[in-house]
């Protein structure tokens, strides 16, 4: 079945890309695991025909390769939702860091504008 062959090939390519990204440290393991799971599950069902048949029967899908795409779609949806939570968290952190940076800069300007207390260090550059 050429559709399954295509799905198998695509997931092998995906696996290869993900592993290469981990190797070159462009992808954190945490997110890589999600992608590996996605690619792995699709590859499994693309190769394991009776499994796919059982799955499509359980889902009530008449044409087994469609079950493969439903499965892939589900994984992608979970991934996207996960990314949205990550973006939200990053936004919260950016807000916090921006506020703290502004407060720190304000403190720094305050300290720098005050006359320096205590004895001045002896100027050794001219001696």
């Amino acid at each position, binding site marked *: 079945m050429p559709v399954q062959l295509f799905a198998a090939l695509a997931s092998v390519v995906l696996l290869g890309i993900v592993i290469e990204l981990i190797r070159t440290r462009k992808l954190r393991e945490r997110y890589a695991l999600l992608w590996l799971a996605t690619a792995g599950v699709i590859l499994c069902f693309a190769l394991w025909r009776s499994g796919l048949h059982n799955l499509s029967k359980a889902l009530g899908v008449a044409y087994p390769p469609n079950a493969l795409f439903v499965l892939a779609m589900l994984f992608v949806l979970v991934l996207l939702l996960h990314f949205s939570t990550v973006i939200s968290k990053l936004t919260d952190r950016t807000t*916090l860091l921006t506020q703290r940076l*502004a*407060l720190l800069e304000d403190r720094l300007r305050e300290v720098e504008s005050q006359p320096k207390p205590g004895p001045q260090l002896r100027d050794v550059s001219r001696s």
Partner: protein
Amino acid sequence: MVALPAADAHLDAPRCLAIVPAFNEAASIAEVVAELRDFDRDLEVLVVDDGSTDATAGVAEASGARVLRLPVNLGIGGAVQAGYLYAFERGFDLAVQVDGDGQHDASELGRLLDPILAGRADLAIGTRFAGQITYRPPLARRIGIGLFAALVSVRVRQRVTDTTSGFRAVSRRGIRVFAADYPHDYPEVESIVTAARGDLRVCEIPVAMRARAGGRSSITTFRSFYYVAKVLLALFVGLFPREHLAIQD
């Protein structure tokens, strides 16, 4: 995480901070700062420059305000919270929140501060819709305002008429609550719920407001849909407090 220098803490007279969030308000900010300083010489004016691309920060500083410069634009919620963080760290007893566009009349601040100074409330909101009504918004906006008012009133079990007003006075307890947790984007409506959740006593004070002195409202027609949807979502779903930051006195 938040160190509070002892030297900053309570003196005899209660210290009050005016928090003025400003995004590209160079045209009106000088007037706003001058008016606040005229109201009370001892009031410290803090302009929170929310990543403006115009001369807002410079103009504000030249007119005698202290300026907190946010390096990136956070939106009004993040800017106001930065002000509350400043007030908290520096040990202010009271804070007032005044918009940078000049629509809030500083001479009304006394009435807003009264219930806080008397210890009767932790959050006093200046409302346009009680007492002498001087402001009549267009129909669509009136519906939105009415809807928010009804929902918030149910949520905090207290009648609130003007949930979108950003003209407020806050006690030390209120400063603490808002420094730890303040809503994003369009925060006015949600922050009343945040206040109720933080066990703050909320009251409304009728005030007169002016038309904007300069700049443009951040709420365009296009954005108002997002505004309404976002606030409704927050009111219905925002039942659980956000993860609080470690903030101690």
